[in-house]
């Protein structure tokens, strides 16, 4: 295959509420731009093919795998990574519950798990266990065996409901 010189270009989008302009090849993965250009290493690379959820971010409020997003497709979008979730009360409840229930061990899957849980709870504030399983089915964990994570999300839902 002949090498063709795609050129880098400026691409502007919002990350965690701040407007950022990066200079990148349009087919660079959003994942790599976030980690390498913007230093947001909370977003992890796992499988690199949309199966494990370690690279989950919100793009325009929707959970996506950033390894499957060419950065040009993020132009003009609002991206939120795990670093940007800090002030969100629901995210706080999820993180606290992960600590309490042992939902995090090595930590590689945790940012994606937390984002998937928050995405689920935003749509369904009182999910059933089946809905929690479905909401987190795209996120793989090799440490916990999942039960602690599922229980943590259920607990976070109960706590948020109590506050709500």
């Amino acid at each position: 295959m002949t090498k063709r010189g795609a050129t880098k270009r400026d691409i502007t989008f919002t990350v965690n509420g701040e407007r950022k302009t990066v200079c990148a090849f349009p087919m660079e993965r959003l994942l790599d731009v976030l980690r390498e250009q913007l230093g947001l290493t909370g977003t992890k690379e796992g499988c690199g093919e949309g199966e494990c959820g370690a690279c989950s971010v919100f793009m325009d409020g929707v959970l996506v795998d950033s390894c499957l997003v060419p950065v040009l497709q993020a132009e003009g979008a609002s991206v939120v990574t795990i670093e940007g979730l800090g002030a969100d009360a629901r995210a706080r409840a999820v993180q606290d519950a992960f600590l309490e229930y042992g939902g995090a061990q090595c930590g590689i899957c945790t940012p994606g798990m937390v984002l998937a849980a928050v995405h689920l709870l935003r749509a369904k504030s009182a999910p059933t266990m089946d809905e929690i399983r479905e909401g987190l089915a795209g996120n793989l964990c090799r440490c916990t065996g999942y039960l602690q994570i599922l229980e943590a999300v259920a607990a976070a839902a109960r706590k948020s409901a109590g506050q709500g």
Partner: protein
Amino acid sequence: MRSNPAEFEMVAPADLPSALSLLTAAGERWTPIAGGTDLMVQYAAGHLHARRLMSIARLPELRRVEVLADEIQIGAGATYTDLRGNETIARELPLLAQAAGWVGCISNQNRGTIGGNIVNASPAGDSLPALLAYGAELILVSARGERRVPYGKFHTGYKKMELAEDELIRAVCVPRKFAGYLQHARKIGTRNAQAVSKIALAALARMENGAVADVRISLGSVAPVPMRLAATEGFLAGKSLDADLIAGAAKMAAGEVKPIDDIRSTARYRAAVVGNLVAEFLERLLAQPEANGTVLARWNALEAGEAAGEILACCGSRAWAREMAARRPLADETAVLAASDAVCASLRDEDWLEAFRAHPRIGEKKAEAAAPKQSAAWSAQEQSAASAADEKTKAALAEGNREYERRFGRIFIVCATGKTSAEILAILRKRLQNDAVTELRESAEEQRQIAQLRLKKWLRA
């Protein structure tokens, strides 16, 4: 292994015409990319052959879901999440909504599109058996114009399709005529999420008097392209459903598919499970014939003209009947009654007058206009309390009716159900004091109430 982004060009046209003109550019070949759930996986593995990519993820023209009178047009750029969240799709096309929930996981469903599922042309594409079973059509668009292709003729072989280099799928059109059908979908994979199917089934059928009136069975992952079980469907058609027929159909289905051995499963396993899935579907159909046999389900499935003709007995305005038929499918009695009220609110004076003419005078049997038999029978029931009147009241009613007709030029309309002739007479005398505009409005309100009562009787028959 991983691809080098410096070797790939990518553009993101702002609208559909710009995208289509790029596809016609001489000497350049741009490959459309939407949610990237397939192409970015190839890219990650260093297997993506295309070097020029055109993002169509944000083309507003491709994302719309339009509900028309006789079909639902789903923009090719609608994501699986869009499909699952659309109430009309969930209600009328449950096979498609369910299939959208089979895809990968939530993040994949947020990005992947129905158009992408089709052009990726995998025999295991989750949405494809549903599209085949529904008899969906695709609208293909290019700078040259648009054309419609039945989905069943679109995939012509393994990874081969009826799509020119300058064409995009613009929309997927699914007919709205399956309200009376039992719909059944099943995917067999190693787990619920993130699994490519070993076998996927989408099937629907309508029963009539215990016999299979229409049956459509589609399967994925059992042939180079998704397939309809034409022989098995033909075997079932018109026969009365019982355990023997189900066993015969299951055996035939297992022999009709052409599965292969691959990393996910074996041909033998797939054929056996196809038989089991077909049996499971037919057993459900046998167990729930009432779900298919209701008046509403049957009416929902009629041709528009027939449907309007039947419901005309509930209210004699042809405009009302036509509009009711156009609002199908209606889910249940509540939906029918609400639809009638909404349609009533839009009727013109002449529509009301036409509806009034379908009623006989209070105390008489024959309407001015030729009314359907059912309408005449209902009129007799509605007026039964009034017809039990003594001779004196009857005479007073007859005189009141004549006076009303002299004054307003039409017969007196009242929702007579449950009212005695004395009550009706009192109402008649009061209404004789109305001016013409008020009286038309009050007559229309009575007619609306009559329609509500008749719709209930019709649905519960």
